[in-house]
């Protein structure tokens, strides 16, 4: 996640650790520093609120209480009900390969991170900061222009060479999610077989919604080799795939910068 060198420019950058992940916020609007600080506080405050509500590592989180049956669906927060509904949709759409119960108990973390960053981006837009980029552990939501005044340019990490990127996508209104099995080895479990998925090394999904893009990329990895064809057919989303044997596949419409 090495970024461009420090530049003198409008905007603000801040990195915080939330949800066990380094989240980098890049605000590129030429606003007063106090306003930018408030916007950053809003973003990270929201992400910490989500973490408190959805962490499966906290017994007192809403998601843990719901998982134990202590909170009825009708009494759950609007956010939790929305997340549960989306996870159910994605479970169906991915033929069960995206599974919020894969660990044996309710754990929607695979959707929550992307969704919460998506919401943060929408709130920044509504608050008058239409030029920003949020990178949550390699999953990105961007809007508008960078501080350099051009569309954001996002490298997709090369699976075998961490100092290189295997493609660059760019745009002014995009979600970009990458799931991969490099570095940690094959760690995405095929929920049907219960064994590590093999076939795809890295799947990047680009489209309008980060939670969806993240779920698609995770599901495609879990599917193994057939996941490439599956993810290539998602309506409204494009992809770049690197297979275990080193083939690079991408949608013709991938917004290559």
């Amino acid at each position, binding site marked *: 996640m090495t970024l461009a060198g420090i530049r003198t420019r409008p905007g603000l950058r801040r990195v915080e650790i939330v949800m066990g992940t380094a989240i980098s916020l890049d605000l590129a609007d030429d606003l007063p520093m106090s306003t930018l600080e408030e916007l950053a506080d809003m973003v990270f405050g929201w992400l910490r609120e989500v973490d408190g509500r959805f962490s*499966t590592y906290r017994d007192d989180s809403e998601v843990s209480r719901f998982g134990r049956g202590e909170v009825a669906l009708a009494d759950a927060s609007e956010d939790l009900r929305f997340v549960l509904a989306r996870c159910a949709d994605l479970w169906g759409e991915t033929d069960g390969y995206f599974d919020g119960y894969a660990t044996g108990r309710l754990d929607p973390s695979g959707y929550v991170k992307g969704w919460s960053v998506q919401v943060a981006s929408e709130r920044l837009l509504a608050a008058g900061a239409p030029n920003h980029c949020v990178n949550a552990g390699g999953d990105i939501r961007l809007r508008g222009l960078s501080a350099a005044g051009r569309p954001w340019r996002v490298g997709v990490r090369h699976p075998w060479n*961490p100092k290189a990127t295997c*493609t660059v996508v760019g745009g002014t209104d995009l979600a970009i999610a990458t*799931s991969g099995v490099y570095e940690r080895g*094959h*760690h995405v479990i095929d929920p049907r077989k219960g064994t590590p998925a093999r076939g795809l090394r890295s799947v990047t999904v680009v489209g309008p919604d980060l939670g969806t893009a993240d779920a698609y990329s995770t599901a495609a990895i879990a599917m193994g080799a057939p996941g490439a064809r599956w993810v290539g057919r998602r309506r409204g989303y494009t992809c770049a795939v690197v297979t275990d044997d080193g083939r690079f596949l991408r949608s013709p419409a991938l917004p290559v910068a």
Partner: protein
Amino acid sequence: MRRAVLGLAGLAASTTLLVVVKGAADATPTPVSAPAVPSVPPSGSPAPPSGGPAAGAGPDGSPAPATTTSKKPKPKKTTSTKPPDDDGDDEPAPPPPPSNRKTFTGTREQNPYGAVQLEITVQGTRMVDIRAIEMPDSESRSDQLSDQVSVQLREEALQEQGSDLDTVSGATETSVSYRDSLRAAIEEWK
């Protein structure tokens, strides 16, 4: 990332980071005895024809295999020989940072695939950047694999990360080694 763990209010809690690391421990890779990457053709096996036609888009609109246009020089190997604070080879030197910025270097964390070492940049009481000084090549056979990949990917698709990128998408940042080195850098700062 999927199991990921909790947040840390601000950066206040290095003890909480310990919990993060503990919570993620079950994701630690075991040393691989069998190759994690199957299907690397033996060195004598035919490679796809350089610059040849693509195999064609798959049916149903699946992604089209990219054609190879030329061989790319072997990516520079970065594991283990590099001094911890030497990044000059890979990135353009940033302009001199303002004096109120400080950098802190995390520990060099070994994992079965290599080493991870991070550097954080702090301005005032805020962290404003995280950089990877070192990341592992993903497999011990990475030289061989990098050659293999370089042949098969499009040349224009294989770029060195540079100052023209605003950010990078990847699945690396969730690793245990990444968190350990980050925690160490934050502890160095605090």
